[in-house]
């Protein structure tokens, strides 16, 4: 085992309603490539944010090169020799490659009034060469170069800075670097990373387990904020890691499975060969009355875009959508509303609700036409409608006039759903309905979803965890790289095991 | 930092407000609503108003609208609200349509007032018993006079260029009409180019520079006001043609009078701003005090052109003595002494 240069001891971090890290011990050794894997929500991003000083631990200790580290942000982290390479790059788009490379540290090329542009360009070429960008002109604008090049440029910058600050063996954190790369670029990245290992440590975060296994000297698996395993090279294959990621046990009655109802035979929504260039293609599905269909896939699998197309906020390039057998136009959110499709977005605060308005106005937002008498709104009608839905959806609010911004996340969620129910939506798209909601409230949402389905609403859902997807849905549609790869039925008495499913996803 | 700033701003505001209200609080409020104090014309106007108010122990209130019709109306309404009927008004409406709401507001409040310059033709002064008079200076006559003087200085033949005022502005149109009338009677003169410099000195300078390129043989410049005439004159000076290419303007600003004296300008017209400032208030006050009975006034005394002061090289010395070195003396009780003609 090599020398440990970064160590996190018993790190705990909690956010309202969720424990992101629950006593994690994490270390990085000199000259190694460390693979970090885990499902969405396992705590990877929180861990990374702590490492680069964007967040601090609630409990536990953080040591860098043997010293206790107190970082107050990414630039302090870089001074200590640890930096993160973001997927889309963190470069100023209108500046040149070389400007970005040396930004803020031009003084190291001399303190005269005029910058020695030529010397800087030459130095830049050297830095670029080291990360395989020898053919990139240091004077080209960053906005014009490819994502792969941006990523490598960031690596070059971190390496240069660590040398500037006199830090030996910097730690580079790469977040999903391969998702923006072509296959040939991936190979190049790996060979460069292999070479860089001689003078740096690399933390490699990826959903592509094959790549992780191929590249990493060591693999750390996170699940639910805990460290599940710390495996040396060759200690685990993809299958074993998958099992560790999703865990073994699946509690029997987590998702109110007993309340699951069989769906009707009537097709409520029929999507045929939907395509959005570069995002997804050939997407077809039928949604039946009272059915809960879960869309499963990683970030970038195209499931978010499918839902956006259904909500009318994105216009597909081709394909058709029919609601209740009638072909519908989906060119704007209004079309979707008219067709009876309601979207409950992940970011309720910003997208789903007018938080500055009160509960009543939000519930009646889509049906103001029915609240009129002549050109004027009738307060009595508005109140009656709002009261009805507050009661039906069990919204806990001090009054109908309470501003939605003061409600809890769970109740905001219910207001959004009530809005759609009031508008008589027949289809609901629930985008991560339990995100940021505490455990007790989650159960209430599960029951609510069941009740909606039992009442005949059809639901498309995207969940936080695979277990939730399996548990809640009648059927799963698994997407990968923009295509449907599998449909998996999930009847209440024969739910598939997560291990059996994850292979299709990653 | 923020609190300190707020505090400083509050103190500044308080100071400016208290100084504004520290004026003596008795006597008739004498409102003067004009464009702004940034231009000499209205600055002199305000001095005339102040001088008259002081002479009768009234409280002069100078309101500037800075080009906003709405502000002008609001300011007037604010003073009415404060003073009630104990007020008179003398107004240079920002735009002619603005006259209507102003007249209605003052009429409703029972406040006597006089307006200058801008008025839509369709609005009849006689429909408003408190509208003592609408006074203007004939732009047409001024424009024609300027043209004639310019042509005379050129010996009756040659090319001229013209700089119009703000397009669609009544005064600008009238003065230009006057020029055209003068041109009809001067067969030796051709109008080589017309453009607008929007009353502005810098713009006139720039347009003139371009004019001089296109018309190197230009013999004279007719500008709808002195500001533009002076801007054009600078361009002429820069080209080394001062004295050879003469300019004419209107308004009688000091520099233009100096240019007439120096032989670089042929003529200008003084609209006696000091007189306007004082006489507007004097007429309104006379009506308020019953010295003139608005109801029995003949129609032509309700809307008339007043006498402007024509300046040429012939009378320049006496003009300088009266208007530049000294302040002209007016008999504020000679209400219609400057009457020239009715406004039709």
């Amino acid at each position, binding site marked *: 085992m090599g020398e440990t240069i970064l160590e996190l001891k018993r790190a705990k971090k909690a956010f309202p309603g969720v424990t992101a890290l629950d006593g994690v011990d994490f270390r990085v050794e000199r000259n190694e490539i460390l693979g970090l894997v885990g499902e969405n929500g396992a705590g990877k991003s929180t861990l990374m944010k702590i490492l680069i000083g964007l967040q601090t631990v609630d409990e536990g200790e953080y040591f860098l090169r043997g010293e206790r580290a107190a970082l107050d*942000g*990414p*630039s302090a982290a870089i001074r200590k020799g640890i930096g993160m390479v973001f997927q889309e790059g*963190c*470069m*100023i*788009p*209108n*500046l040149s490659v070389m*400007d970005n490379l040396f*930004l*803020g*540290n*031009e003084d190291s090329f001399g303190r005269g009034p005029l*910058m020695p*542009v*030529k010397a800087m*360009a*030459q*130095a830049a*070429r*050297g*830095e*670029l*060469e*080291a990360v395989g960008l*020898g053919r990139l002109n240091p004077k080209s604008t960053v*906005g*014009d170069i490819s994502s792969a090049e941006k990523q490598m440029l960031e690596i070059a910058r971190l390496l240069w800075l660590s040398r500037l600050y006199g830090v030996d063996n910097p730690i580079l954190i790469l977040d999903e670097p391969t998702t923006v790369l072509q296959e040939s670029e991936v190979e190049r990245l790996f060979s460069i990373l292999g070479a860089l290992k001689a003078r740096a440590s690399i933390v490699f975060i990826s959903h592509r387990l094959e790549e992780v296994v191929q590249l990493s000297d060591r693999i750390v698996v996170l699940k639910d904020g805990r460290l599940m395993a710390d495996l040396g090279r060759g200690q685990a294959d993809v299958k074993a890691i998958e099992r560790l990621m999703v865990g073994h046990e699946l509690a029997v009655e987590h998702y109110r499975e007993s309340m699951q109802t069989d769906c009707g035979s009537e097709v409520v929504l029929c999507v045929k060969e939907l395509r959005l260039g570069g995002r997804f293609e050939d997407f077809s599905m039928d949604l039946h009355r009272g059915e809960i269909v879960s869309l499963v896939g990683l970030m970038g699998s195209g499931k978010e875009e499918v839902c956006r197309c259904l909500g009318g906020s994105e216009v597909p390039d081709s394909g058709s959508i029919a609601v209740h057998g009638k072909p519908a136009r989906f060119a704007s959110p209004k079309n979707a509303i008219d067709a009876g499709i309601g979207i409950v977005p992940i970011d309720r605060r910003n997208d789903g609700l007018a938080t500055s308005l009160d509960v009543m106005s939000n519930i009646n937002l889509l049906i103001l036409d029915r609240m009129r008498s002549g050109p004027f709104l009738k307060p009595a009608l508005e109140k009656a409608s709002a009261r009805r839905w507050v009661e039906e959806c069990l919204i806990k609010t001090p009054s109908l006039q309470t501003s939605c911004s003061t409600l809890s996340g769970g109740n905001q969620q219910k207001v959004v759903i009530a809005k759609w129910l009031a508008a008589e939506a027949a289809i609901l798209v629930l985008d991560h309905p339990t995100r940021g909601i505490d455990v007790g409230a989650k159960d209430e949402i599960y029951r609510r979803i069941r009740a909606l389905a039992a009442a005949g609403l059809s639901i498309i859902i995207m969940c936080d965890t695979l277990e939730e997807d399996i548990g809640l849905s009648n059927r799963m549609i698994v997407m990968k790289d923009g295509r449907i790869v599998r449909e998996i039925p999930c009847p209440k008495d024969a739910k598939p095991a997560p291990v059996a499913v994850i292979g299709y996803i990653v | *930092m923020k609190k300190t*700033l707020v505090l400083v701003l509050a103190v500044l505001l308080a100071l400016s407000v208290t100084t504004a209200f520290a004026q003596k609080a008795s006597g008739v409020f004498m409102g003067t609503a004009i464009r*702004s*104090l*940034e*231009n*000499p014309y209205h*600055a002199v106007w305000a001095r005339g108003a102040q001088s008259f108010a002081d002479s009768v122990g009234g409280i002069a209130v100078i309101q500037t609208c800075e080009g906003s019709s709405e502000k002008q109306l609001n300011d007037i309404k604010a003073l009415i609200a404060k003073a009630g009927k104990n007020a008179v008004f003398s107004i240079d409406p920002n735009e002619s349509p603005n006259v209507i709401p102003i007249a209605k507001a003052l009429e409703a409040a029972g406040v006597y007032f006089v307006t200058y310059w801008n008025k839509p033709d369709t609005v009849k002064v006689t429909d408003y018993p408190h509208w003592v008079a609408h006074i203007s200076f004939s732009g047409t006559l001024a424009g024609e006079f300027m043209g004639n003087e310019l042509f005379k200085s050129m010996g009756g033949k040659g090319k001229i260029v013209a700089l*119009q005022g703000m397009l669609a502005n009544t005064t600008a149109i009238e003065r230009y009409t006057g020029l055209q009338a003068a041109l009809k009677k001067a067969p030796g003169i051709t109008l080589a*180019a*017309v*453009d607008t410099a929007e009353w*502005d*000195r*810098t713009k006139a*300078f720039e347009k003139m*520079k*371009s004019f*001089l*390129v*296109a018309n*190197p043989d230009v013999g004279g410049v007719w500008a709808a006001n002195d500001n533009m005439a*002076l*801007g054009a004159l*600078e361009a002429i*000076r*820069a080209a080394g043609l001062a004295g050879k290419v003469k300019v004419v303007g209107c308004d009688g*600003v*000091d*520099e233009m009078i*100096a240019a007439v004296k120096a032989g670089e300008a042929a003529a200008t017209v003084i609209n006696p701003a000091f007189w306007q400032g004082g006489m507007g208030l004097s007429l309104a006050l006379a009506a308020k005090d019953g010295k003139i009975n608005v109801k029995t006034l003949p129609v032509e005394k309700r809307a008339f052109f007043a006498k402007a002061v024509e300046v040429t090289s012939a009378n320049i010395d006496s003009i300088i003595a009266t208007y530049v070195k000294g302040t002209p003396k007016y008999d504020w009780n000679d209400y219609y002494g400057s009457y020239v003609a009715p406004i039709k």
Partner: protein
Amino acid sequence: MDGLAAAASTAPRAATRPLASRLLSFASKGTRGQIVALAIVMLIFAIGTAGTSVSLKNLQTILSLAGIPMIICLAIHQVVVIGAMDLSTEGVISLAAVTSGFLIKNPFTAYDIGFWVIPVAILIGGSAGLVNGLINTKIRMPSFIATLGMWWVTQGLAVIIGKGNAVKMLDQRFQNIANGDVMGIPVTILIALGVFAILFVVQRRTRFGRYLYAIGGDETLARQAGIKVDRVKVIVFTITGCIYALASILLVARLASSNPRTGKDLMFPAMTAVAVGGVSLSGGVGGALNAVFGALIVTALNNGMVLMKVSPYLQNAVNGIVLIAAVAVTIDRKKIGIIK
């Protein structure tokens, strides 16, 4: 490091290119569209005026007319580059003008400080800019509001100080300079080009210049890179104020007269020229050269319209159309990512 050696072998290619091609690439970087636009404008008017518009005399006229607007454009465009806005232009110019008017030999006051008025005016303009910058960064008020407030304040001060007087400048030397020329080239354009040269070098060759673009491109990232963003912004506003003062002195000198209206109606034309020149109003794109071309295009356009006797009723409309067309074309060439 081994990369350095590898890079050294490929380095000298830039130095060996012929001067002409280097000049061309220097000028065309980000201003190709503007050069074409200027050429088109000149060509149209050359045809429309049967050559008068491209006569030596008129080219001189255009240059002499372009000088002051160019200086104002050069002042404003810097603020635009950092993604901010400056609406105080007219007020600051008027205030500096009125104050200068009373300090140079004049009929109203006994002061006659001669050319010392230049540093005094620059001090006034710079102070206004400094306050703009401080309000923007320390009190964290949008530059739009901060400078709008400053416009009212300075315009008001100009009226209070000037009392509505047009102040005649009796020191002939100023006017001689402002309307003079050196070997046929108007002095104002030479001064403008001097300002341009300084800003150009600052923008292309100094850290400070680099930081302007970093801030205009992405302020958060610039801050993360350790750039003292607030300080840079304050300096930019201050320099802008100083350049306004320079323009103000020239305006006063050219007409030998100052009054509180001296700065009136200068901001929108300058902003138009900056945009026409290809400086992105969302920041980070375009530089001093664009400001220069913008001022030239707009001036040539207005001069040409006078020569062609385009109806004054139409002239403003033409300006507006050119603005929208120019910006539409400019935006097309940019990456969507940096249009905010």
